[in-house]
């Protein structure tokens, strides 16, 4: 075989990440999921940068405008007077001589003339409809996704960071460090997870940073357990011993030698945590324990939908619930595919 390409291939055999990516690329479902996840991330980043959905809070349509594709030509429905209409209003009754406010009417009318009233330009059609205050539901959902997804990602990063660091310490050093961290793990897992979150939420004030801290600080136990098990396995392997013989420090062995070999576990756990935390944020915000009232997230949108549904206004529920379901399905399927693609035991 004198073919230079073959030789080149032999010299540089593909690493596990490259192999994993190659396998992932053949999986059509995984690639679709990746595209959806990337699309959501791009929308979220655009919204964060202020490129889109900046004015979600503006009144752009009539209250509860239904979602429509085309321009509604018959705009009378918007102008129709609200309230009970009597068939026969009867002749107007003059009560000015008994009305104590009569002397003031003239003055008030003068004053109102001086106040400029700006009537907001109302859109005639919105693709996703409008909410109670006339906000565009599409812009609101995008803004909500920014909060929900960023909470999920940042909290998952925090959880992964804590879980990996503590898991590495416990698995690598063993001894009293391991005993101490196992004790901490047992303490945190001896409570139902949701009760732990609520107990922590009870003592902290509401806020964007707080909810990230709560989810991150309580959600690291799963990844800690897995990373600890991996480090227990790897610490005595030949390549780590070899690094030790060459004079590599503890930190170098832990993070430069072992960490790359367990990084696939971290990636899978990270995306699993993102899904879990997005779901948790929605529920916490619904209960009023999540993001503050001046922010909008999928959870706060869903909190409005309970009474809307009774009135027959279904579009906010579909927009927020639907976009969340699409994103979470995409990440879950991607996670499943990544787990298979990156598992060294399943390599062909």
């Amino acid at each position, binding site marked *: 075989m004198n073919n230079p390409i073959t030789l080149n291939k032999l010299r540089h055999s593909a690493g596990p990440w490259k192999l994993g990516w190659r396998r992932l690329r053949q999986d059509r479902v995984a690639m679709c999921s990746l595209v959806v996840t990337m699309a959501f991330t791009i929308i979220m980043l655009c919204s964060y940068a202020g490129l889109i959905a900046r004015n979600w809070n503006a009144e752009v349509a009539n209250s509860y405008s239904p979602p429509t594709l085309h321009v509604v030509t018959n705009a009378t429905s918007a102008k129709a007077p609200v309230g009970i209409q009597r068939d026969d209003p009867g002749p107007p009754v003059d009560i000015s001589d008994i009305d104590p406010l009569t002397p003031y009417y003239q003055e008030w009318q003068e004053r109102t003339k001086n106040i400029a009233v700006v009537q907001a330009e109302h859109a005639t059609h919105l693709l996703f409809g409008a909410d109670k205050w006339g906000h565009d539901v599409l812009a609101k959902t995008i803004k909500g996704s920014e909060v929900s997804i960023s909470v999920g990602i940042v909290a998952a990063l925090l959880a992964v960071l804590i879980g990996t660091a503590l898991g590495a310490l416990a698995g690598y050093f063993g001894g009293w460090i391991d005993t101490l961290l196992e004790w901490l793990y047992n*303490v945190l897992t*001896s*409570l139902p997870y*949701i009760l732990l979150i609520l*107990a922590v939420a*009870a*003592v902290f004030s509401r806020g964007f940073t707080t909810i990230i801290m709560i989810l991150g600080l309580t959600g690291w136990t799963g990844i800690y357990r897995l990373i600890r098990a991996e480090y227990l396995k790897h610490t005595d392997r030949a390549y780590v011993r070899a690094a030790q013989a060459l004079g590599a420090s503890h930190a170098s062995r832990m993070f430069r030698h072992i960490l790359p070999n367990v990084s696939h576990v971290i990636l899978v756990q990270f995306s699993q945590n993102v899904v879990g935390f997005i779901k948790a944020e929605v*529920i916490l915000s619904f209960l009023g324990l999540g993001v503050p009232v001046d922010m909008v997230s999928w959870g706060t949108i869903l909190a409005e939908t309970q009474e809307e549904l009774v009135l027959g206004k279904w579009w906010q*529920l579909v927009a927020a619930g639907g976009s969340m379901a699409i994103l979470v399905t995409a990440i879950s399927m991607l996670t499943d595919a990544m787990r298979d693609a990156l598992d060294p035991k399943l390599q062909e």
Partner: protein
Amino acid sequence: MSLSQFLLRRILQALPTLLGVMLLVFVLFNWVGGDPAYILAGKISDPARIASIRQQLGVDQPYWVQFWIFIKQVCTFNFGRSWSTSELVSDILLSRVGPTLTVMIPVLILETLLAVLFAVLVAYVRGSLTDRMVMMSCTVAMSISFLVYIIVGQWLFGFKLGWFPVQGWSDSVITNLVHYAPLPIFLTVLVELAPSLRLYRSFVLDEMNHDYVRTARAKGLSEHAVMLKHVLRNAAIPILTNLGIALPGLFVGSFLIEVFFSIPGLGREVVESVNRSDFPVIKATTVYLAILTMLINLLVDVMYRWVDPRVTFK
């Protein structure tokens, strides 16, 4: 090792964990949570009133004395009174457990039976279109927020179709079970079925790849007998573990369900206590649930032996 020795050792092992839980709760509510006197006294309060509340609660004592008071509270089941309703905390907890269990026990039974049944059926036709479709719908079903299920379910079956009451609760267990609980039970089972089904399917599949299954088939047993007697019996061990993990959550119930359907259960009580900063109620619930979790774990370990004769106490 005999059963009593095993139990004694496990209980001794659980003590440091229990101490840790109490320490965690103590740090959260007595240290991070701030001075309870300010919460209790309200916005307009004079220093004398705050001082008297502090003395009453013992928060003017050093931290180690406060922690000792807390341990005594845990041991004597006496957490004093709720800060917002002045009910005895022990009365609150005991009266809230009933409604939660009225909903959650049927949920647990129905969900386990359905999940195991479907898991065995789906695992039996693994790789087929049915299997893939069921797994796919499970993933999608798990992605929809619990909130959406409850909001839509309550609206559709309670409000629109009128098959069930929208919400409510009574004092009679029978009325609750036949009248108020069915919709909450149905919705919770609907939500929890998908993750359980996926998990149990993987347990059953693991067992089906073992040699003993081939042996059972080779000796001419019916598929029925292979699946139900051999495979399911062995898959019962991880299923039991999973149930053990889920069991403590049973007592907090599905707090969202309780909030939406106005069920006076433990879950709703916790959510309300969090909103009202009613620390004694949350503290008591947290500690006793931790103790319950440890007891249930112990029970599951004992039950392993009953399911799997190979397991010995060690």
